[in-house]
Structures are given as C-alpha cells and as structure tokens.
C-alpha cells in the first residue's frame, strides 16, 4: 500500500515537471512577447532595454531561465510578474483562490443536490415521460456552451428584466468579499452558480440514472426484492450506494479540475477574479511567471484529484483492493 502511494507521488511529481517544461516551451518562442520592452516602457532607448534585459536575466540560455523561475516559485517564493513588476506571483495566485472556491463549491452543492434528485427520480420512473423529459433537459444542459449561457443570463438579469421584481436584486458583475459583505457575496454569486452547475447537473443526472438503472439489474437487487423490501428502499439504500461510486469518482475529477481553474469561462463572463480569470489575463498578457504558477497550481489539483479518487476507489470498492 505504501509502495503504491509512493509510486503515485512519484508519478505526480513527474507529471508536474513535464507540465512546467511544456508551458515554458510553449511561451518561450512567441514573438512580441519579449518582456524587456514592455517592462522598460514605451519609447525606451536601446540602452535602457539592455539594462532591463540584463537585470531580469533574459539574456541567459533557456534552461537557466527555467531553473531560475522554478527556484523562485518553490524555494524562495519571490517570483514576480513580468507585467506588474514587484507583484509577487505566489501570494497573488493564492489570493484568487477564495473566489474560485466560492464559485466552485457553491456550484458543486447545487449540482450534487439537483443531480441526485434528477437521477433518482428518473431512475425511479424509468421509461415514463418524466424520465424522458428529465433526460432531455439534462442533454440540453450539456449542449449549451457555458459562456453563452452566462451571457444570456446576464442579458436577462442585468439588462432586459433588471427592473422587474424578479431580478432587481441582481447586483452588478464582480465579486464581493465574504468578510466585507456577506449578503453581497451571496447575491453576486447566485447567477454564476446557476450557470456553472447547469452543465454538470445534466451530466451527473444522466450518469447517475444510468448507473442506478444498471445496478438495479444486479443479482443482489433481485435478492433484496425477493426478500420483500420495498422498491424505494431498494433504490435508495442499495442501488444508490453502488452507483454513488461512479458518481463520486467523476465528481472528484471534475471538482479538482474546476478548483484548478477550469471555470475560466464562467469567471471571465461574470467578472469574478478567480484563478481561471487570472490565468486567462496572464495568457493574454503573456505574463510567463503567472502562467507557470497558475498552470502548475491547476495541474496540481487535477493530479491530486486523480490520486485521491484512485485511493478512494481502492478504499470503497473491496474488489479493487485485492486486485
């Protein structure tokens, strides 16, 4: 068990190393991304440019630059942005985490609750029109591009129907700190929560329904039925439990990816300064230190989530443990 864990750890580190190299390589060769001129300011004379280049070490070979950056991120922690000079990157990224967490956790609560409801109801009434409708709704949820949905909701709540009783409570876009203004924090996040969760409600609702239906055909369910247990009891206590395995593993992967910044589009559309938006802005600015840090952070979460899910799977499913 310990050996397996260590192996996992080694794999994780290797993957993160690979990603950091990949990011560095991708951005190294972009034209117009020479940070020296941008740092030196407009119309800077060539001597000024040289001075800036030297002080940042841009004239060193790539691997030296890469190692310097890695050292600054992990060891000394004083990596600074290329665009906003003097701005420490690591604390900046950590600062944006609460925003992303607020968005993702809220959406996760929403989608888990609704997916459970939809999945169970659909499975319970399988074959009926309720089941079919729910599944179609779920499909529609999956088929909508999340940024488009966000824009449409914005249109409705911010502009068209803003003055009606239904949406007058919707505040202007942007994030409010929970510590400063809890009510404002909640209100600004409601529409983004809905937007982000619709895709996942559809997805997880369908997955759960399929898993429940499948497990309802297992032998042990037949035994339970033969024993005289009610359908509801069978559904909720037996079939659901086994289907939750698939649900939980998928959830772990998706949640990990979202915390890592995959909610980028939602954050951009709603003006929430989370990790995703920070990454996106940094990508547009070609601000390499921030990009490296956020991508490493994002992939750390994905890899972590993968590992946690694998371990959980090992723990939950006894069949896998002995394999």
């Amino acid at each position, binding site marked *: 068990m310990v050996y397996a864990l260590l192996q996992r750890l080694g794999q994780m580190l290797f993957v993160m190393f690979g990603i950091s190299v990949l990011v560095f390589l991708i951005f190294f060769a972009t034209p117009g991304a020479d940070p020296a*001129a941008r740092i030196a300011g407009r*119309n800077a004379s060539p001597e000024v440019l040289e*001075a800036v280049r030297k002080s940042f070490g841009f004239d060193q070979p790539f691997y030296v630059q890469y190692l310097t950056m890695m050292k600054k991120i992990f060891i000394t922690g004083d990596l600074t942005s290329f665009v906003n000079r003097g701005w420490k990157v690591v604390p900046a990224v950590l600062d944006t985490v609460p925003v992303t967490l607020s968005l993702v956790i809220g959406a996760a609560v929403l989608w888990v609750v609704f997916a459970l409801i939809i999945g169970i109801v659909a499975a319970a009434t399988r074959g009926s029109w309720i089941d079919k409708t729910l599944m179609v709704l779920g499909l529609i949820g999956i088929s909508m591009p999340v940024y488009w949905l966000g824009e449409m909701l914005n249109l409705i709540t911010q502009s068209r129907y803003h003055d009606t009783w239904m949406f007058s409570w919707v505040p202007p876009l942007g994030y409010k700190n929970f510590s400063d203004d809890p009510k404002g924090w909640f209100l600004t996040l409601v529409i983004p929560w809905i937007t982000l969760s619709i895709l996942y409600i559809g997805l997880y609702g369908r997955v759960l329904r399929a898993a429940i239906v499948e497990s309802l055909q297992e032998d042990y369910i037949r035994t339970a039925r033969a024993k005289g247990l009610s359908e509801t009891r069978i559904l909720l206590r037996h079939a659901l439990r086994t289907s939750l395995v698939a649900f939980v593993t998928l959830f772990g992967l998706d949640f990990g990816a979202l915390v890592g910044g995959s909610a980028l589009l939602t954050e951009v559309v709603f003006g929430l300064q989370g990790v995703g938006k920070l990454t996106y802005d940094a990508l547009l600015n070609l601000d390499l230190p921030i990009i490296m840090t956020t991508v490493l952070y994002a992939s750390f979460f994905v890899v972590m989530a993968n590992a946690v899910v694998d371990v959980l799977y090992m723990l939950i499913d006894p069949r896998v443990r002995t394999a």
Partner: protein
Amino acid sequence: MRKWMLAGAAALALAFTAVVPAQAEYQAEHRGGTMRLVARSAAGTLDPQINYTLQYWQIYQSVYSGLTGFKKGAGEEGFEVVPNLAEELPAVTNDGKTYTFKVRKGIKFSDGRDVTIKDVVASFQRIFKVSSPTSGGFYSVIVGADKCIATPATCTLEGGVTGDEAASTVTINLTRADPEFLFKLAVPHASILPADAPATDAGSVPIPGTGPYFFSAYDPNKGLTMSRNPNFKVWSEAAMPDGYPDVVQYDFGLTDEAEVTAVMNGEADWMFDQPPTDRLSEIGTKFKDQVYINTLTAWWYAPMNTRLAPFDNLKARQAVNFAIDRKALVNLFGGPVLAAPVCQVLPPGFPAHAPYCPYTKDPGEKWSAPDIERAKQLVEESGTKGQKVTVIVEDTAVSKSIGVYLQSVLKEIGYDAELKPISPNIQFTYIQNTNNKVQISVSQWYQDYPAASNFLNVLFGCSSFTEGSDSSINIAGFCDEKVEAKMKEAFTLAATDQAAANKIWTEVDKMVTDAAPAAPLFTPKHIDFVSKRLGNFQFNAQFYWMVTQSWVQ
C-alpha cells in the same frame, strides 16, 4: 503617447507664461466620502518614474510633485506650466542652458519627512538608475546624462544637477538649450521622491509622495486605494490644490459592459475604459447629464511599413489613404460626436496645425469622401496589386472592428488582405519590432506635452527607428533626409522664436503627410461617463478628468 499614456492635448501653451487666473474656491461642505473608480485592469508598475500610462498619470497628479507642474485648471489651462516644488519659474541663464530653482521649504512627504535638496538631486539621479523609459528621450539633454545612461547604477549626474542646501536651490545644466525642458520637469517621470526610494523599479510597493493623497493599498489584480495625506498643506492652489474625497477606491477586473452597468447603478462613480459602442446610445439618451465629451489632441492612424512590400511603394501608400472611408471609421468609433476624420499628422487645434487634406475626392482642407477609383488606379500603377497584406490590430472591440473594415477595404482595392488581432498588451511592442515584418497596423498616439515635435519627430524622425527592437516608435520606418533637415531647422529656431519654428513644423507636417508613411484615420474625443452623485467634473487638457477635484457628497 498612446491611449494609456498621458494624453496631452493641443493648444499651444508656451512654457513661460506665468499668468494665474483665479482658482475656484475650495468648497468645504463637499469634503469627504469615498469615490469609486473602475477599470478593466491595472496599468503596470506604480513607480511614477517608470509608468508611462494615462491610467496612472491621471492619478499621479494628486500624489506626486515635480519642480514644475501643469496647472490644475479646466481645459487648456492644463497646458500652462506653473511652479510646483519650486517657488517660481526660474530665470534661464547661460544661453538657455542653466536653470536655477529655489525649492520651497516646509513641504513634507506622506510619511512625515521633510523634502530636502538631497531628495531633489537623488530623484533626478533615480530617473537614470531605474532606466526610466524617457531617460534617453527626454532627459539626455542634462549634462552627465550620457554617463548615466551607459552605467545607470552609478549615476551621479555630475555637473548636471547640483544642489545647495544652504541656499535651498537646485541648479540644472543642460548640454544645449531646450525650450521644452520645463514641460519635461512637470511630467511624473520627474517626480521628486525621497532619496531612499529603491534604486530599482518599485513595482507594486508605493513610494511616498508630496501630494494631497498617498497610495495606501495596491493589489494589481484587485485594486488601488488612495487616502488623504495627513502631512499635506496647500502651498500652491494652481499646482497642487486640496482634494474633496477622503478616499479614492480604484477597482480592477470588470469588463467594460459591467463597468457601464456599475456606473449606471451608482455602484461606481466613473469608468476608465471607453464605453462599448452598443451602450453609447443608451448613455447618450437616458444618462446624458452624466456624460462629458472633451476634445483631445490625439489621432488614430495606420502606420505602413515603408521598408517592406507592398508599402515600400509610395503609390501603394497613397492608394490606401485614398480608399479609406474615414466617415465609416468614425461611425465604428461611436459617431461624429465622438470623432472627426483627419488626413494629416498634426491634429486640429494643435500648435502648427494648418488644415490640409490631399487624400479625398476633392483635395483641399477637409476630408469629404473616399476616392476608391483613384485608389484602385494607384494600386495598378504601383504594380503591387494582388500582394498579400496582413493588418495587425489590438484585440479590443473598437480596434478589431476597424481592422475588419480595413481588411475589407484593402481587398476592395486589389490586395489579398488578412487580419490578425493581437492581445492589447503585446500589440504595441509587436508592431514596432521589424523582426515581425508587420506591413500595416492600427495604433493611436496621444501627446506627451504640447509640442509639434512630439508628433512629427517622435513618430517620423530617423532617431526613433531602431531595427529589431521592441521599442522603435517610428513604426513606419520612415527616414527622409529632407524632412530631418527641416525638423532640425525647426528645433534650432525654437530656442529663439517659437512662432517661426511652428511655421516650419507646418511645412514638415505637409511633407510627411505627402510622403504617406501612415494613413491618418481620425481624431477621437474623450468621453467620461460618471455617476449621478459626482459633482464638479472638470476636464484638464493635460490630465483629463481631475479626479480629486470632483466631489461625491
């Protein structure tokens, strides 16, 4: 400078006028409150000697002071140079090469320390130590500057800037007479900072200043906070008046659509970015009392690379100039209320500007309509028909729509045109670097201070062109001996007779316009959209809206 660079505005303001009309009275009943400003993003370093963006120069005016300053008055009063930390404008001796300033006593920095002569001298040295972007362009005229540019770390400016503690004076010696020098001392790059300010870019750590406000918090991702400077006392109403709000909170991160909504709902008092065109009619009708439109001296233009096919051919460049429908571009920008077509380099209302428009259906003084037939003919004659052309623009709504239009026009006159929008953060340096082989792009230029040289020499002079550098502001690569000679003539004449010099600049304007290294597009007006509660909006031609001179209660 460009949009995020300080905007200067036109009107000739001779540096030496010392007339100070009556300042508006400070109305104490409006003092207080928190003003909230919003912008899409931060604008780089907070260091006043390095930052070269309009966004921050607009707020530096109430935080930092130089020896001289631009007057804080409405409109073109903003072009007047007035004494700031200096007691009065100096007498210039030694054929215009020596300036002696008497520095005021009793002024404190926001951290409580007194401003001393040592601080003044150290600040000038710091300009070179931190490699300020204008250390070469503006301040190389100071004696000893050449050594400082070569080895910035050990800059002493010996013989250039010397201080006399006892007499409380600072003497600056120049290598040649420079009639623009007092302007150069008034811009934030020449702010007086404490002598122990870091000798490198301070980045996001604020440096204490002498103004009525100081930066109490700064997070480039979230926002900036300006609070009252407890150690400030008014020493010159003209240069540094007191401000009204207690706190100015400047938040970053919203999209321009969201910013408009915020101002409309009263959640924000002002937005930095231009309102998106689809909200303009709403703003112009329902909220017209909260809108202020002011003239600028600036232009949007399309530099064409004169060293690369097809625009190394004069006829091709002229064809582009004839084909562009400047009225359509004005519409894309927001309509005739917000912009006006131009066909020459110097913008209207600018010193040395004389209306001249050769690139229209009936050439004369004003632009009327494009001449597509003539354009097509010129393209044929030039022999460049059918060549591939790529237009590079910034990836913002307005720039992109202009780019899409330009591509369409280029196709119409016979080129195989493509469009490439690039992130606004790198587009400007990208189009300057000759390694990127940019043929035509769209850019803007706003003036640093009111002088014709700022447009003609900086944008089209040979010394502004450097091969393979991200910093070669002469994007068109235009270098003509005759034009250079004329510009030199104007420079030398300006030391003695500014008016005569301006006449020569007018000629230079004509020469450059005829050579068509760029296609002038339009001159924009500036639109400020403010909240209902904001009062006393004043637009200053040099700094734009004077932030702290308005009140919120």
